[in-house]
């Protein structure tokens, strides 16, 4: 296990690169879902405003 993590001495480079790559994916999916939720809330408010006026 230690040998696997060490990556022949390149562990820091390999793991930080993979960390950034996966972090970028997770963040992108999270932000996209958040945008969709915000847009829905906004549309709901807009429709409610139209009903009032």
């Amino acid at each position, binding site marked *: 296990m230690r040998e696997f993590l060490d990556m022949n001495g*390149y562990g820091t480079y*390999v793991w930080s690169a993979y960390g*950034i*790559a996966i972090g970028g994916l997770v963040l992108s*999916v999270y932000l*996209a879902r958040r945008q*969709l939720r915000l*847009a*829905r809330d906004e549309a709901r408010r807009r429709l409610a405003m139209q009903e009032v006026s």
Partner: protein
Amino acid sequence: MNWVWFHRFGSPPYFYRMAGRWAPWFLALAALLLPVGLYGGLAVAPTDYYQSDVFRIIYVHVPTAYLSVMTYTWMALAAAVALIWRIKVCHAIAAACAPAGAMFTAVALATGMIWGQPTWGTYWAWDPRIISELFVLFFFLGYIALRGAIEDRDRADRSSAVLAVVGVVNVPIVHYSVDWWNSLHQGPTLMRADGPAMPMSMAWPLLVMLASYTFFFVAIMLMRARAEVLRRERGGAWLREELARLGAAT
């Protein structure tokens, strides 16, 4: 030739529902392939003779760099279609590409820097491949900033679409930079005329990672395009219906 299907995609309610149906499948497929590709790249692929284990960065660097350029191409294509045929859904699709594209480009540059230090002896070099890729990042960020700066949505759509189309000149430059100029960056490994320059045991995790990243992109793009379609909708019975259905479900 039946063009009905094409026009249907231009209809916001149809696109919104279709995108909603497909996005979870693409996301599930991407999430399923990701651990397979990671396991293959980190544990199964043999250690490289020249670069030792640091070559494993290829499995995250190449897919993000590839997706960076593909996302830009797709964004410019959607923007061009939106400008020429005035299809609003295409403006929504173009706008949905930029944040994912900026992420892919930033990750490609960052992983490239991390790979450069042990192999080239430097994090950064003013190299044609790196500079052209940096310009792709600037175009994505400029596109996002321009949209944010213009209040009127129709004007923001048109101006940013022009910027996206102009920036597409970068795409062939990124691709051919390693052939046209003397570059520190190595040439293509996978997509060569004479076949991949790596054994299958090294190539399959790369193909799986490429597929996973592509599916992630499609899922993210569809989710963001749905949000953009909602923001463009003024009233509309379908929207009321859709939100009511959603409200009942939660």
